[in-house]
């Protein structure tokens, strides 16, 4: 295969990853890493480097529009990012004393259970009867966004300590297991804090780039970022994420949930299989 064809395939796959990732608030590494390692036999270190760049590109490419359209809740993003970064530091310290296989299986199962709670809520366009808890009041987390279909939607935020706790675990897991924590971020905001799905996925999108940037420097320093791999990944993802961020306002919250749930199941399956030592996706 020629270099040109290889570049085009990677570019196309990256575009898809950016498009899907920007809609549901995940980094898209789950789509890129298997392609690079399983289909092309790229060494895992380069694939993980490309995956981190993929996450940052998805986040930055889409956040431009999501910020401008005021869908992202900046206060929630920054408050929860506090938990994620502290979690990431703890994770780095815990790395030598915990059993990664066990954690993969455990949190894979947690994700499966979360997916069932997603399915229960399949028909719910907006969460009903949510009232600010005291932390949400103190931190002024309640906000609103303009929904193209529903008009001006004001929402409140609840169970903030639970959301903060999940984010801490998400940060620790991303440091311990090297998995993108986007799915857990969306779950914390949608399921625990009961924010509207669009706000949850776009706020997660904003956050994943910041979380990934914390470890990106390390991969860069180790020379695990291969420019010939990363360039088509970054360009494809940026294109996909920019288009995805224009599509999201036109979708319903139900539509985004329907897209997110199968991806959640895919990530859960990947984690459990990996924990059990079945290395289907090469990562």
């Amino acid at each position, binding site marked *: *295969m*020629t*270099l*040109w*064809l*290889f*570049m085009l395939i990677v570019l196309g796959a990256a575009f898809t990853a950016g498009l899907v990732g920007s809609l549901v608030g995940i980094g898209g590494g789950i789509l890129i890493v298997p392609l690079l390692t399983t289909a*092309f036999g*790229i060494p895992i270190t*380069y694939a993980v480097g490309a995956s981190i*760049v993929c996450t*940052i590109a998805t*986040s*930055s490419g889409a*956040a*431009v*529009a999501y*910020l*401008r359209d*005021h*869908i*992202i809740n*900046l*206060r*929630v993003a*920054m408050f929860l990012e*506090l938990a994620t*970064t502290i979690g990431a*530091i703890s994770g780095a310290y815990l790395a030598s004393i915990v059993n990664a296989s066990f954690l993969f299986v455990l949190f894979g199962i947690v994700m499966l259970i979360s997916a069932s709670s997603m399915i229960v809520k399949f028909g719910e366009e907006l969460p009903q009867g949510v009232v600010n808890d005291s932390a949400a009041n103190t931190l*002024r987390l309640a*906000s*609103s*966004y*303009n929904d193209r279909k529903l008009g001006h939607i004001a929402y409140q935020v609840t169970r903030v300590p639970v959301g903060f706790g999940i984010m801490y675990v998400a940060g620790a897991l991303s440091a311990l297991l090297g998995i993108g924590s986007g799915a857990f971020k969306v779950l914390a905001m949608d399921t625990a804090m009961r924010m509207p799905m669009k706000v949850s996925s776009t706020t997660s999108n*904003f956050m994943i*780039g*910041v979380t*990934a*940037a*914390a*470890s*990106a*420097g*390390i991969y*860069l*320093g*180790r*020379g*695990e*970022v*291969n*420019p*010939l*791999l990363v*360039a*088509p990944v*970054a*360009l494809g993802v*940026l294109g996909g994420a920019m288009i995805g961020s224009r599509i999201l*306002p036109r979708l319903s919250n139900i539509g985004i949930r329907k897209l997110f749930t199968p991806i959640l199941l895919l990530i859960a399956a990947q984690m459990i299989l990996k924990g059990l030592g079945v290395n289907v996706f090469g990562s």
Partner: protein
Amino acid sequence: MSLAANDDRTQPPLAASDPPPRVAADPSVIVSYVLRVGVFSSAALLVVGMFFYLISVGGQAGDWRTTVNDVGDHSQLHHVDQLLADLARFEPLAFVELGVIVLILTPLLRVAATVLIFARERDRLYVGITFVVLAVLLLGWFGLGGGGLANLTAEPIC
């Protein structure tokens, strides 16, 4: 005016044709603009670098695997001096590498912009929160000998 919340806004979200005064007054839009500058500079560097690289290898680009592995082995991302020298010689891949670095810096840029905006709003609580996030990020990059940019001028670890 409240930050991140847009309770006071009822107009459609599209801001492409907004006049500069409103842009200057709206925190989310400022962070969006800062981010857009970062994203487009990165994309431009990547496109220009890849274009000239692919032109230069042209028809003699053989098997992709050999080429990709070869470039990976000689990547200059961890040597700032070498990167600068390559940029000065208009080495196409050096522009690609610079584009990647700019892209990786965009999240830091957005957190830094958010700190400044909360500060302008005199929102002390969120200046504090965002500043801690920024500090942790910078620590991950430069501090504690934990790798990151601190290692850029050193020998590669692997």
